[in-house]
């Protein structure tokens, strides 16, 4: 159960079991599924944040962005 505390606010094995509605999946597999999705969700979150950051920079420095684009096209 120690690995359950790897991440803060993480789904417990019991909660994951409820969502899966499949009694044939073992606890170990459930843990693997949960951890796999957590890793995927983290990658998605990081990508989403980076996109937001880029948008924010574009909003704050539209002239600089335009300059960069101009330099790139040159």
């Amino acid at each position, binding site marked *: 159960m120690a690995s359950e505390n790897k991440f803060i606010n993480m789904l417990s094995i019991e909660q994951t079991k409820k969502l899966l509605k499949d009694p044939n999946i073992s606890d170990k597999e459930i843990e693997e599924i949960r951890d796999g999705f957590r890793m995927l969700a983290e990658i998605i979150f990081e*990508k989403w944040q980076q996109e937001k950051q880029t948008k924010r920079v574009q909003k704050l420095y539209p002239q600089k962005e335009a300059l960069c684009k101009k330099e790139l096209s040159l």
Partner: protein
Amino acid sequence: MRGIIYTRVSSDEQVKGTSLEFQEELCRKYCEQKSIEVLAIFKEEGASAKTADRAEFLRAIEFCRKNKGKLDAFVVAKVDRFARNTEDHFYVRKILLDYGVTLHSVTEPIGNNPAEKFVETVLAGSSEFDNAIRKQRCTDGMIKRINQGIYPWKPPVGYKCANFKKRGEKKSEPDPPDDTIFPLIQRALKEYPKRRCTQVELARLLDEWGLKEIRGRKTTPQFVDRMLGKHLKFYAGLLENPWTGEETEGQHIEMITQEEMHMIQLVRAGRINSAKHDRYNPNFPLRRTVICVSCNRPLTGSAPRGNGGKYFYYHCHNKECSLFGKSIPKETLENKFLEYLEKITPKEKFLNVFKATVLDLWQEKGKRFESEAAKYEKRLEMLQAKRKRIFEMREDGSYDKEEFQERKEEVENEIAAVKISLSESRIEQFDIEGSLTYATNFISNLGRQWFDLPPQLRPRFQQLIFPEGIPYDRVKGFGTAKLGLIFNLNRQFLRRKFVKKSQVVDPAGLEPAISRMQTGCSAAELRALVHL
């Protein structure tokens, strides 16, 4: 009798009493008295008799060997001119005896009868003792200087030597910094732990900053090695006693602090990663993920230069593999990988777990946005107050029109930036449904997403889908790879492609992956289910 004369001084500044000319004169007079015909004179300048490793001395021995049987005497002014080491003395004397040559000292009664032998032994021991005493005095003098905080030797690069090589004038003050080199070495030492660069890179940087022009030669990695190793303590203001290992605070101006010195030592000892090693090269995102079909080792990438620039290839680096040296163009492999990824989706039956995980993660991160929003609100209040003050200062005449305009624009720009950040963090805080849609769209087309992912996220993503890598054959393409437990190969996608090609209407149940992904529980339902 025939013989040779050997004279020696340990430095070219030897006092008159033992100068080469004086020794030669004494030896010649002695030879005349003893009726020794002088065949050769060997003069040694600036050599110590501590060891027998002296060029002229060796030539004299060689002369004796070549003239074995024709020579009888090896004449020196004093025994200590011959050797200052008892072992060497008797070893060389025995060799000379083998050649039929006897050692003669002008000023001391030595020879082959027992009394003369005894005197010779005492004299040889006395020479060694004399030398040892001088050495001890010299060492004591150096230790004394070190304890005073003065470096008794030539200081490392970056410092000028105080009284270097001036006879009779020993260092009485610390070495002053060399104004031109000191700042460069200091900069390099301070940058080293931050940049975590290699010694070669640091040498190149030093030359870029101008060290090459000042010193008139290229900076070598060996120079950097001495700078970061042997001389580091000196640069940190410490002097080390080489005989006892004790450290003393030096009087010279230090380049770096002792904390910085320890940091450099840690980096060099490997306790902190020295050079930043980029395990995943952004030019070759599939390195380590795609494995060679022949030897099962991960492919690597290289970019040889050719006509018109660099050409990027993946290839197997195992020299024993049959596919060694057979490269695959980067574009070909990555396009095929993209096609392969398009066939992979997370298993649909796990969709609810995925959505719940996304919700959890976003909520967890949302707490950070809450605190960020609070920070922005506080900053905004402060800036509004500042803006008000600027207006007040204009009214009471503290600012003229231009100053007021400048200050006002400055603070208003800051307010605008903080407002945008605040609104962003509020949106991020509450846009749970939007984040769910974003995440679901992500998994509906993994190929496209892999292509759009920032380079640093790609390796993690690939590891998640292909935990053991994916084999690639130059002819057959990608083989069967073990997928992560949450993924499956979407055969349905392939069938759909086939159906479209054959212009037949999609049969029921073969709807596009995205619509299927978007089914399942809503965010509210999920929350209720998870927190039951």
